[in-house]
């Protein structure tokens, strides 16, 4: 019995270490083979809504507590797109930050409410450099509903 426990422990340890640096799969298997540049999606996002895409980019941010989203950098500077997954179905680890990811999913949009200055333009600050409108603004944001991913 003791020998069996030792054998299980050794095999477990080796298997964890042997595959530590390999690409990790999340969720469903990828079915698409051709990646769509993120810049192409962001340039005309509305036309991609409801379509399944495969995108590739660097993971630049991860949902800290639940691993329920990642932000992927685009092929062009200063561009990112969020990959949102159903809580618990896929959980992205914080260690994914900075790694390359191939993600398959469906483009969708949500309308978010931006924060207005509440009537006090001085709160807007110098950085925003736009005219205060004294009211909340709405913005349509495009994301990918992640179905499967490979991160390495």
């Amino acid at each position, binding site marked *: 019995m003791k020998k069996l426990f030792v054998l299980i422990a050794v095999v477990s340890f080796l298997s964890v270490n042997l595959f530590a640096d390999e690409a990790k799969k999340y969720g469903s298997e990828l079915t698409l083979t051709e990646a769509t540049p993120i810049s192409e999606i962001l340039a005309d996002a509305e036309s991609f809504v409801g379509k399944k895409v495969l995108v590739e980019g660097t993971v630049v941010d991860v949902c800290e*507590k639940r691993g329920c989203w990642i932000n992927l950098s685009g092929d062009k500077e200063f561009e990112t797109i969020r990959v949102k997954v159903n809580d618990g179905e896929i959980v992205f680890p*914080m260690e994914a930050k900075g790694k390359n990811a191939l993600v398959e999913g469906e483009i969708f949009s949500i309308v978010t409410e931006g924060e207005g200055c509440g009537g006090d333009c001085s709160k807007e600050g110098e950085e925003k450099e736009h005219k205060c409108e004294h009211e909340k603004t709405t913005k349509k944001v495009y994301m990918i509903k992640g179905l499967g991913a490979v991160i390495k």
Partner: protein
Amino acid sequence: MKIRKLIRLLHRDVGYVAFGLTIIYSISGIAVNHVNDWNPNYIIGKDTLIVSSGIDSTLTSEQIVEHLTESFSITDSIKSFFRSSPTTIDIFFDKKTLSTNLKTRIAVIETVESRTVFHESNFLHLNHPKKLWTWIADLFAVALIFLAITGIFMIKGKKGISGRGKWFILIGILIPIVFLLLYF
């Protein structure tokens, strides 16, 4: 063999097997119950630093990365970097991210460390492995049901289910019902 003796024997041995998983699930249960108050999987540290000399944001990203890593004497190997705007850059290292605002020269080093025991427990409890683990977790759930049922028939007499035991069972059933009535 008498039925009560068999119940006690099975309850004891199934209980032994369920011990490890019960501890794991309980630890994780407490941890994820308070997910709004803390991060149950990671210890995330943030340190703010100031870049000693100004950085020209018109430099290439590669030149900025070199400048920053030299400024902060970071020798870790770089995984990748990303510019979210002309004046901000994130440099990714293993379990560490350096985010710098080139305009304000303020840099934040974020370190990520796995919360040992909790992270592993949550991984299993929330069924992140899926596959075969789903069946193990189901078997464990069935074992808990078995332990609950056999538990109430282990003792007979006034300390058993026919005695004061039934009142304790009633309390255990009423607790979730009361909270359902209050919050559901």
